């Protein structure tokens, strides 16, 4: 609705008899990205099913229908749901800690030039380091348990997110900074009322990247020492199904990982984007 009100003085609109002609059904469907993406998924699913049937080897590549029936069975008996919940709980914990640390580091970096250099050096060093590479060390430090996973999760979220928040803060226009200081805003109020909203596009992008990194790291970490933590998450589920040569189950686990990723993207990040940065015209 905001967009409509921006039109300058629509003089004389009433003179036209027909101001707009509706598009045809097909043109409207093709114009919707949800429809096009749904079509892509359908095509992929069909290709999967056909190839799986042609191959006729469930140990290598089971057809989609078998994976889906396995998926439904595992969901129904609660195994997949339980595993997904274990994974999500760990993920959220690591994500929250990583986000808090990223904000803290950036707040310190604003307050002092030295901490600014500390932040830039640390992110430059640690961001390229795959979190999963720290798992062996983490196992020694924190033992075979959730502590190790949380450690690598935090590591996977913290650095990319810190980098994005930092980039966002540094890109806040000088004019906006001066405006904020003009009104006597300083310290935390300045950060909360000027820098964070002004850098919100970058922060949101960082949150999305951090989410993806954390998700991947978690599944990988669970795969690596899934055996030792009975009652593990989705990675462990996949690992176990592979050991039992239940390949449709492996695919069902992978499918769950994908579905959760899509749901979070569409049910969480997209609506946040629409209500903030898009509405504010800070991202098209």
């Amino acid at each position, binding site marked *: 609705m*905001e*967009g409509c*009100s*921006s039109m*300058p003085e629509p003089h004389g609109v009433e003179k036209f008899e027909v101001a707009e002609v509706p598009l045809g059904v097909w043109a409207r469907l093709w114009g919707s990205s949800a429809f096009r993406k749904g079509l892509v998924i359908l095509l992929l699913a069909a290709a999967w099913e056909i190839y799986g049937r042609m191959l006729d080897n469930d140990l290598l590549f089971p057809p989609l229908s078998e994976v889906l029936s396995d998926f439904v069975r595992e969901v129904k008996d609660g195994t997949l749901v339980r595993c997904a919940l274990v994974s999500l709980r760990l993920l959220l914990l690591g994500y929250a800690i990583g986000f808090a640390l990223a904000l803290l580091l950036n707040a310190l970096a604003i307050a002092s030039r030295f901490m600014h250099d500390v932040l830039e050096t640390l992110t430059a060093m640690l961001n390229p380091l795959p979190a999963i590479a720290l798992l062996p060390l983490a196992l020694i430090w924190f033992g075979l348990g959730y502590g190790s996973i949380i450690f690598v999760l935090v590591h996977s979220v913290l650095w990319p997110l810190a980098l994005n928040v930092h980039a966002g803060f540094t890109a806040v*226009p000088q*004019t*906006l900074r*001066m*405006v904020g*200081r*003009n*009104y*006597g*805003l300083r310290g935390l*109020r300045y950060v909360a*009322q*000027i820098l964070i*909203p*002004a850098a*919100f596009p970058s922060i949101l992008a960082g949150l999305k990247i951090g989410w993806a990194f954390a998700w991947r790291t978690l599944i990988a970490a669970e795969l690596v020492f899934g055996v030792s933590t009975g009652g593990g998450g989705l990675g462990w589920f996949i690992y176990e199904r592979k050991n039992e040569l239940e390949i449709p189950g492996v695919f069902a686990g992978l499918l769950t990982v994908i579905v959760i990723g899509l749901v979070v993207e569409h049910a969480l990040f997209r609506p946040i984007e629409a209500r*903030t940065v898009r*509405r*504010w*015209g*800070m991202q098209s």
Partner: protein
Amino acid sequence: MSGMVAPPAPSFLEVSGVTLRYRTATSHVTATYRVNFAVEQSDRFVMLGPSGCGKSTLLKAIGGYMVPAEGGIALRGVPITRPGPDRIMIFQEFDQLLPWKTVTENVAFPLVASGKLDRRKAKEAAAHFVEGVGLGRFAHSYPHTLSGGMKQRVAIARGLAMGPDLLLMDEPFAALDELTRRRMQDELLALLADAPITLIFVTHSISEAIRIGSRILLLSPHPGRVRIELPGLPADAPAAAAAELEREIHGRLFEHA
């Protein structure tokens, strides 16, 4: 009444012997050198000069964003040391509005942030000033949906709503097209006629200086120094007087001292 002779009252804003320096990556730049002037209440004081004369830097120093290397700036006799809501800056850049707030929220924001009004009263005051700059229909629009001229009007409404001691405008209309600029100049004058606010206005346009200013300070560049101060023209002055003043300013700015 006591029979004692009061000492001469200090001017509203006193800029005395102000030298401003800033540091670039490679050198120290002297933007202004020992600049003196005084502004009285409800002046429309224009600082005019070519680029490099330090007029914007001077305005920033009055805003409290820079500390003079020499001399001092005092408002109502109190030295200026940092930015504050008693001196509202209006910039040339359109991104001075907070993109995450609607027009009304933008105008209300400083009222709340500076602790002047509570949220509800600030909203009411903001609505009034948004109406005053003719943007009532756009009160709930976000800045990115507005034209450049409308954004500048929001910035002006935001400044006026604060009722500051000084309104500091840094070439606010320079990025607008000529027609819009003309209209904005007239609107600004009309708004100021209703509000007893002292204006300091920086521009490099001679005609804009003549339209806006009740006093015009001419600055020369490298480093910025005061060339001369001229009185502005009354609003009903004949066109010939404006042309005459324009010629005089032109001569003063480009004569080689």
